[in-house]
């Protein structure tokens, strides 16, 4: 077998064996207490890949050394014949590692975080149930369900919690009915009446009744409005409703209330009413269906649902958020925004479905040393150009999480803040600070520039780029040195007994300390480059140093001479 084919064969075989060993170790060290069983296979594969990619340079050294160290022929010919296959193999492995690395890291971080969140939420849900705090228990269990619904621990707790909730509901007194009180407003009453007329002409007696009733409430002396309300009400009943049926009357009344809330600009309240009606066996009613969908659409424009936040935050949140809203240059809002300072703080943030979700959100806008706006909200959602501050529980619409304004709002509604933020960019800059290894090379490169605009420390992402850029150099240098070591320490006696391959595991073990120290020297090169030239220029400096080391290794490999047939001098 020529040295080129031998190199490919031995190196790839060694890589497969090494990956199998890492996978075996990951499986053996897996613990259900640490990682949720639903993620077991993904976790083990990610761990094995992580270990394999980390040891790639060492494996390349060992593969090349074994391939050439067990070959026959003149040493210098072997080494020189190994150059092309070594370059091809190293280039392929380095490129594959650079592309796969971020996915592997993202998977590991995600699984680790989800498992930690699952465990802490499960404990909190149990504690809440035992302490009688069912709302908290339900909230924490919701987090667990978002992560792993089929987990037996979740199912068991769900049945216990449901039983406790049913008991609590049975013992609870019914809530008092809400009365809508509206001030006298004849002008608005006329507008409402005209709308009611228009709806009545179209045959939409439901809407006509609501508008006419509202006009009558706004101006009790408005007899036309009262008359229209009565006629449209009769029309409604003539189409199937029985005036003596109290249950139906209550249903219509609730429907009207929901419709009123929707038309008066409270889509969250309307959604709550229609959701209750839908849940109370009225889901087939065409009005309920129509206005539930309409209120849902309207709600999504000014608010968001808690399950969205739970789902996002259970995947992989970035903790400890503090960043600046980038100043806007040259826009209509420019001068005021540029002169002011906008900062966002949150307990954590997570990216999902094109939006960025925050928990325990705080926004400060200051100008001239005075806070112009200071708002806090338990949850917030950043979509293009605005941050929604109102959060609703989809299944329990009565539970609404609202913002609290300590100062402001300086302009616009209190339920949202309009800010020049692009969610994707903001998330990339935030994630780069905490776990830069999960970003692709391109994203990481972009994140360095964005970090400055967002007032985020770019050092971690530059450090990660330095570490990633080291990988190709390490693989090539290790391959060159491996080829050299293989040629230098070849067996002088004729023939190569196959039994000697049994030494390979011991050789790998013996290589571990050398590999560790080499890796740390590589880290030292990165750290020094970052210290001498902070920022992206440190990448050039580190690459320069590593190129010199690689050049030296290649020089040694290419200049290998076998003077007396006893090995390379």
């Amino acid at each position, binding site marked *: 077998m020529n040295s080129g084919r031998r190199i490919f064969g031995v190196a790839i075989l060694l890589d497969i064996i090494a990956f199998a060993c890492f996978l075996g170790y990951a499986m053996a060290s897996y613990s259900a207490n640490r990682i949720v069983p639903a993620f077991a296979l993904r976790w083990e594969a990610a761990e094995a890949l992580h270990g394999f990619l980390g040891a790639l340079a060492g494996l390349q050294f060992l593969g090349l*050394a*074994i391939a050439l*160290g*067990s070959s026959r022929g003149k040493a210098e010919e072997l080494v020189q014949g190994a150059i092309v296959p070594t370059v091809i193999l190293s280039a392929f492995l380095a490129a594959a590692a650079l592309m796969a690395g971020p996915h592997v890291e993202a998977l590991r971080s995600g699984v680790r975080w989800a498992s930690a969140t699952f465990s802490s939420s499960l404990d909190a849900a149990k504690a809440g149930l035992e302490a009688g705090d069912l709302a908290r228990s339900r909230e924490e269990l919701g987090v667990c369900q978002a992560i792993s619904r089929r987990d037996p621990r979740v199912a068991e707790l769900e049945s216990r919690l449901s039983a406790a909730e049913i008991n609590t509901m049975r013992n609870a007194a019914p809530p008092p009915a809400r009365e809508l009180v509206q001030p006298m407003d004849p002008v608005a009453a006329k507008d409402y009446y005209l709308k009611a007329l228009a709806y009545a002409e179209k045959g939409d007696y439901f809407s006509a009744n609501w508008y006419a009733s509202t006009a009558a409430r706004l101006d009790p002396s408005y007899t036309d409005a009262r008359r229209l309300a009565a006629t449209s009400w009769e029309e409604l009943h003539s189409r199937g409703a029985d005036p003596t049926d109290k249950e139906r009357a209550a249903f219509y009344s609730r429907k009207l209330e929901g419709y009123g809330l929707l038309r008066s600009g409270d889509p969250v309240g309307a959604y709550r009413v229609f959701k209750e009606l839908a849940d109370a066996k009225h889901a087939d009613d065409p009005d309920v269906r129509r206005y539930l969908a309409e209120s849902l659409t309207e709600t999504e424009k000014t608010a968001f649902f808690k399950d969205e936040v739970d789902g996002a935050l259970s995947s992989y949140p970035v*903790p*400890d958020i*503090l*960043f*600046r809203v980038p100043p806007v240059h040259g826009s209509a809002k420019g001068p005021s925004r540029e002169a002011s*300072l906008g*900062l966002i*703080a949150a*307990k954590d943030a997570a990216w999902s479905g094109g939006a960025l979700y925050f928990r*325990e959100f*705080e926004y*400060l806008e*200051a100008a001239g*040393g*005075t*806070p112009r706006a*200071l708002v*806090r909200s338990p949850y917030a959602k950043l979509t293009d150009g605005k941050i929604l501050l109102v959060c609703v529980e989809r299944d329990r619409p009565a539970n609404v999480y609202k913002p609290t304004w300590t100062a402001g709002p300086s302009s616009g509604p209190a339920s949202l803040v309009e800010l020049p933020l692009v969610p994707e960019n903001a998330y990339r800059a935030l994630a780069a600070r905490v776990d830069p290894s999960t970003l692709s090379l391109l994203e990481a490169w972009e994140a360095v520039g964005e970090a*400055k605009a967002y*007032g*985020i*420390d770019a050092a971690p992402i530059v450090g990660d780029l330095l570490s990633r850029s080291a990988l190709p150099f390490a693989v090539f240098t290790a391959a060159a040195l491996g080829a050299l*070591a*293989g040629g*230098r*320490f*070849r*067996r*002088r*006696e004729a023939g190569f*007994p196959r039994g*000697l391959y049994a*030494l390979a595991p*011991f*050789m790998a*073990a*013996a*290589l*571990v*300390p*050398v590999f560790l*120290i080499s890796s*740390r*020297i590589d*880290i*030292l090169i990165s*750290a*020094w480059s970052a*210290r*001498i030239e902070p920022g992206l220029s440190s990448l050039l400096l580190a690459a320069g140093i590593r190129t010199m080391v690689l050049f030296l290794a290649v020089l040694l490999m290419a200049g290998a001479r076998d003077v007396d047939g*006893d*090995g390379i001098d």
Partner: protein
Amino acid sequence: MKVWLGVIGRACLEFAIILILISFAAGASIAISAPASDTNAVLRGAAKAALDLVPLAGVFTLFLAFFSFELRVKGRAAGWLGLLLLGVILMSFGLGIRRLPLIRGAVATSSGGGAKVLRLIPAATAEQQDRVALWVGSFAGGEALNAVAVDFSSDYPRLAYSARAPIDFSTGDVDIQGRAYRATLPDALPLALVPEASIFSGYWIWDRLDSMDDAPLFNVFAAAGGFLLLAIGFRFLCRITGWPLANALLAAAGLGGLVALDALLSGGAILGTIEAFARRIGLSLPAPVLLACVEGIIGLALGAMELTATSRRRRRAGE
């Protein structure tokens, strides 16, 4: 003889290269914690490390020389003597240099710590230490302007703001809404190349020789000599299997094993046992000399076993 001397000469050159490389690596790892303005920190650290790490560079060189002697010098005894001579040259050089009055003076001067410099966090960048994040718009006239602090370990809400937060330059803290927050960057830590070495900290051969600067010369040379004989005893690793590549890698691991064995023997419990045994048989030698004796005996025994095994193998091959 020419080849024999050639191997020793080449090993001396390798020693110089190894010493320079590991000194710079060690110096750089220590100096990473120095302020960025201290441009000579690496050179100072490397010079200090060069003095301390002579035994380590020496043992590296010896292990490389195992293979050179194996390849070039046929006689085992000649090879053993060559290694011994090489070790004596390197150790004597290192220990002699350390004791020069000029070098001792320079080491004493460089070991004095410099004044601590406060490094304020960069303006317009959120800096987080532990779970407290601080953002300062700019620094002016002893104040941090537009300072925002968020302590993520405290209860929500957390955001604290001060348009002008005074800086306490004695501590590096800024006062925001009545609470002090650290506005300085933390001290960088040295980057340990071998953090595992802390297990036997103080017992490594280089640490021991470093601490013996004022000890009698005989004790110092005895300690170095014992270690040298033990190291040469590990020569068997260069022919432990029939595959030189495996031998080279096992020798690399053996080098770590050698320094760890030396540190283990010099550690409290084993050295105490050796001292107790010496007292029992009436030997009243200082601890470093006793340890050197034990190491020397182990090294010589390993060397003798290797010589015997080689002679037997050669006789068998001749048959």
